[in-house]
């Protein structure tokens, strides 16, 4: 606002008269108006609102493109976007009929839901009598599950996002990927036939798949050798274009895969994943901590180091004070002293905290759990966890079976549960919650989990609407992520949908990944 004001005032000083129009998207805030007024240009600019709140990024993904939502709400506590979310929900309900079943978890979810209901009441009559097409809605706060958002992604789409940054459904592939001098902006969605087959796959499958496809393509090209004129004409007019298209896409994706593999080998990705899995499972915590320490010392990457520290903090209910102090000091020494502010932000958001004295669970817990059987260990963990306040990740993980027990190798080609999105090590918490609530159609039996999550939940069923809903629509579920959603979660839920016969539609305030989350919390150099 001030920038605009400066422009206008500069013009005024220079004696230029111009007409100014400011278009606010998706909504104009009163604070903006105030600044315009303060700067004395309120009368000179005409303001308009463009309430463009939903961008369909794909056949099942709607994004509100509000990356600032995360920081504004989860760090600053500003509820300014709740209205926008409620409006978006309202829009959907007017398009697709009322939602008979709504569930949610998290404070923001609750507030958005309440505001949305107020909107619905005020606009009463619009959706009356319409048949519901979406059977269930699930609202989820990002802070219910930070862990999933912080993990390295290994499904193809997630990897592409982590490596190249997908923006608004498209990605910029540089020359090393396109094998030419130019970089190419590519739209990544279900229209891209090659992409749609590999996007949800674990990376280990992708290369094999692509090579197979390349061979098939080559075989198809080779067919032309045996053709006569008529067949050739047919081929050229009908099939060649499609083949060429496929060829182009294939080479792009193969290039992307190679680029990803190169980067990951350089970064010592194996080691990184090993550490992450150890943190998720709760083993070798000391080793993981020294790994992080080394990572910081070597000045590898400020965002990665931060991410690992946060992962450690959340899975362990906060760092032990000694570690917190030493890692913080090392971080400030390696990446700059101004990150003192970053640490304060992370602490406020609950991402990187210090254990209060008396909270040290891990050491005792791990010793004990090595001695007793699983069942008993779970009970002891629960007992400990009830003392601790914040994250309780281990207890939740045990309760919801987030770490699958595997006998033998976990088959990534034919995955049997959602854990495949993290190489079989961990089922995303957010997805597991959704799965459980949908199964029970309520929060029954999940009281412990909710208590451990320290959140408020709600479930609301409107029977009148439910009756009208066809069984088809009852299989259609709208999942709303408040604060961002990762491609791994989307892939996991798509998998769940295929397993259980649901169809998921995703509405998110923005597509996110661990890097974006960390950047949102960092204080950037001015």
């Amino acid at each position, binding site marked *: 606002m001030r920038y605009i004001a400066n422009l206008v005032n500069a013009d005024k000083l220079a004696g230029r008269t111009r007409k100014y129009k400011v278009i606010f998207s998706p909504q104009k805030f*009163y604070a903006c108006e105030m600044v315009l007024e303060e700067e004395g240009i309120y009368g000179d600019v005409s303001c308009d609102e463009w*309430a463009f709140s939903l961008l369909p990024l794909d056949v099942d993904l709607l994004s509100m493109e509000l990356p600032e939502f995360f920081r504004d709400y989860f760090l600053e506590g500003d509820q300014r976007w709740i209205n926008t979310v409620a409006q978006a929900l309202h829009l959907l309900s007017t398009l697709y009929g009322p939602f008979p079943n709504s569930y949610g978890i998290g404070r923001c979810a609750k507030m958005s839901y309440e505001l949305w209901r107020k909107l619905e009441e005020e606009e009463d009559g619009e959706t009356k009598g319409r048949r519901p097409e979406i059977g269930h809605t699930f609202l989820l706060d990002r802070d219910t599950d930070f862990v999933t958002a912080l993990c390295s992604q290994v499904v193809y789409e997630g990897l592409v996002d982590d490596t190249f940054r997908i923006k608004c459904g498209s990605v910029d592939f540089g020359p090393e990927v396109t094998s030419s001098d130019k970089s190419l902006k590519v739209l990544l969605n279900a229209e891209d036939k090659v992409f749609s087959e590999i996007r949800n796959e674990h990376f280990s499958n992708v290369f094999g798949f692509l090579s197979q496809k390349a061979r098939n393509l080559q075989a198809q090209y080779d067919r032309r050798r045996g053709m006569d004129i008529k067949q050739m004409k047919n081929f050229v007019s009908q099939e060649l274009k499609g083949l060429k298209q496929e060829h182009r896409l294939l080479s792009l994706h193969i290039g992307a895969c190679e680029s990803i593999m190169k980067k990951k080998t350089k970064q010592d990705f194996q080691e990184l994943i090993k550490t992450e899995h150890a943190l998720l499972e709760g083993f070798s915590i000391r080793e993981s901590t020294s790994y992080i320490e080394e990572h910081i010392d070597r000045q590898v990457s400020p965002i990665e180091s931060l991410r690992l520290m946060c992962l450690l903090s959340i899975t362990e209910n906060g760092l032990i004070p000694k570690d917190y102090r030493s890692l913080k000091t090392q971080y400030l020494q390696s990446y700059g002293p101004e990150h003192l502010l970053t640490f304060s932000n992370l602490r406020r958001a609950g991402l990187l905290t210090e254990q209060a004295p008396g909270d040290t669970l891990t050491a005792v817990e791990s010793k004990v759990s090595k001695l007793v059987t699983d069942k008993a260990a779970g009970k002891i963990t629960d007992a400990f966890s009830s003392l601790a306040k914040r994250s309780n990740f281990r207890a939740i993980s045990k309760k919801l079976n987030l770490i699958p027990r595997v006998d033998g190798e976990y088959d990534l080609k034919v995955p049997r549960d959602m854990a495949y999105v993290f190489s079989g090590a961990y089922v995303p918490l957010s997805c597991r919650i959704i799965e459980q609530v949908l199964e029970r159609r309520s929060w029954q039996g999940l009281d412990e989990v909710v208590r451990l999550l320290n959140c408020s939940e709600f479930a609301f069923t409107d029977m009148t609407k439910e009756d009208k809903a066809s069984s088809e629509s009852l299989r259609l579920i709208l999942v709303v992520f408040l604060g961002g959603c990762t491609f791994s979660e989307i892939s996991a839920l798509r998998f769940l949908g295929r397993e259980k016969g649901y169809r998921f539609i995703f509405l998110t305030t923005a597509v996110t990944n661990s890097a974006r989350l960390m950047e949102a919390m960092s204080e950037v150099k001015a």
Partner: protein
Amino acid sequence: MNRTKGDEEEYWNSSKFKAFTFDDEDDELSQLKESKRAVNSLRDFVDDDDDDDDLERVSWSGEPVGSISWSIKETAGNSGSTHEGREQLKSRNSFSSYAQLPKPTSTYSLSSFFRGRTRPGSFQSLSDALSDTPAKSYAPELGRPKGEYRDYSNDWSPSDTVRRLRKGKVCSLERFRSLQDKLQLLEEAVSMHDGNVITAVLIFLKRTLCKEILFRELEVRQVALRHLIHFLKEIGDQKLLLDLFRYLDRTEELALSHYREHLNIQDPEKRKEFLKTCIGLPFSAEDSAHIQDHYTLLERQIIIEANDRHLESAGQTEIFRKHPRKASILNMPLVTTLFYSCFYHYTEAEGTFSSPINLKKTFKIPDKQYVLTALAARAKLRAWHDVDALFTTKNWLGYTKKRAPIGFHRVVEILHKNSAPVQILQEYVNLVEDVDTKLNLATKFKCHDVVIDTYRDLKDRQQLLAYRSKVDKGSAEEEKIDALLSSPQIRWKN
């Protein structure tokens, strides 16, 4: 109110704008009646046939609200832009005495109300996708100018006001003068959950309440307090923000807020001065140390920068000639500064500001970090002797031994990254304690002797045989392997 009731009645009744009666229900009903009259009389204004259709759709037969909403359902799209229009329509308040205005004060003709005014790039495309009717008649979108002129009544309750604010409509909050009214308004806003509304109310309160009262009231209202803090941060009202923190006794946030300002200061000297002022602030104990370090670091960097720039331009110093500086050292993190110092000033005595040892002592850099950084710097310069010296210590018997606080595998990796010659690599690979890691690294970096020796020590004949094929034919290594394999003294495991 100063006037008598009779006066008031007269005043209001004579006014062009008829949107105020004390009785709420009457208000709405009378307005509806007005509107009905207004719309019916509008037919005179309308020329086009099309508008007739629209008018019919909006005809006030029966349930006015119902028919409007019915018409809305019929028309396409639910764009946010028409949303507002619809809301304005719904909200009875907006239907005040249009008909009484002699002439529409805006240039919009009636037809434009009943046809969606195309807001730039609005949901046209989505609507297009959704509906088939090409002639998009949105529900009457009465346009903001109209709304602003028309419904200038002031007497909405806090909850109504808040509702209007949420919809983005003009609303004067001036009438909430008593503290009680203000607080009630705030409460309503908070229960609405919309941050934009809460901030709007706060803007008003900030303007009309002295800060002590404002702070006192917000102290017990956490949600509103958070919004105020964020608002003050965004508009940059640093003074009030710091006052607020001081009042709330949030000393640490006060200190951090003040410290944050340093990011806006570009000039290094000024920034340094500013940081000095930050030192005494009420940070936590560790943070105070960090701030102190920040100041000291910047102070040093300024000195080093000035000195080095001078040296570089003088062109006498070899190191600067061979490896010209790519960037200034100002505002770099400590480790980077240490690297720089190990690169350019390694041999300096402890007394100078730019010597690495001085940095290590001043900032209490742990050995691990120091060795790692010094190694990286010297390896980059290919100063292998210096690297050796880093790890060599004399034990009490006078024998030299190599030790490293960081694990020799790390050392080897860094050496390899800097293309160290194989002999140097070999030496350090040999020092790796863990046998598997040693073998891995040796094989990776082709340190044949190490591999051979290790297999010999492990008495692993099979592996040695396998490795034989990896070395060059006729090389010294091959001969060595052959010699070992045929040696009768070794008792092989396999």
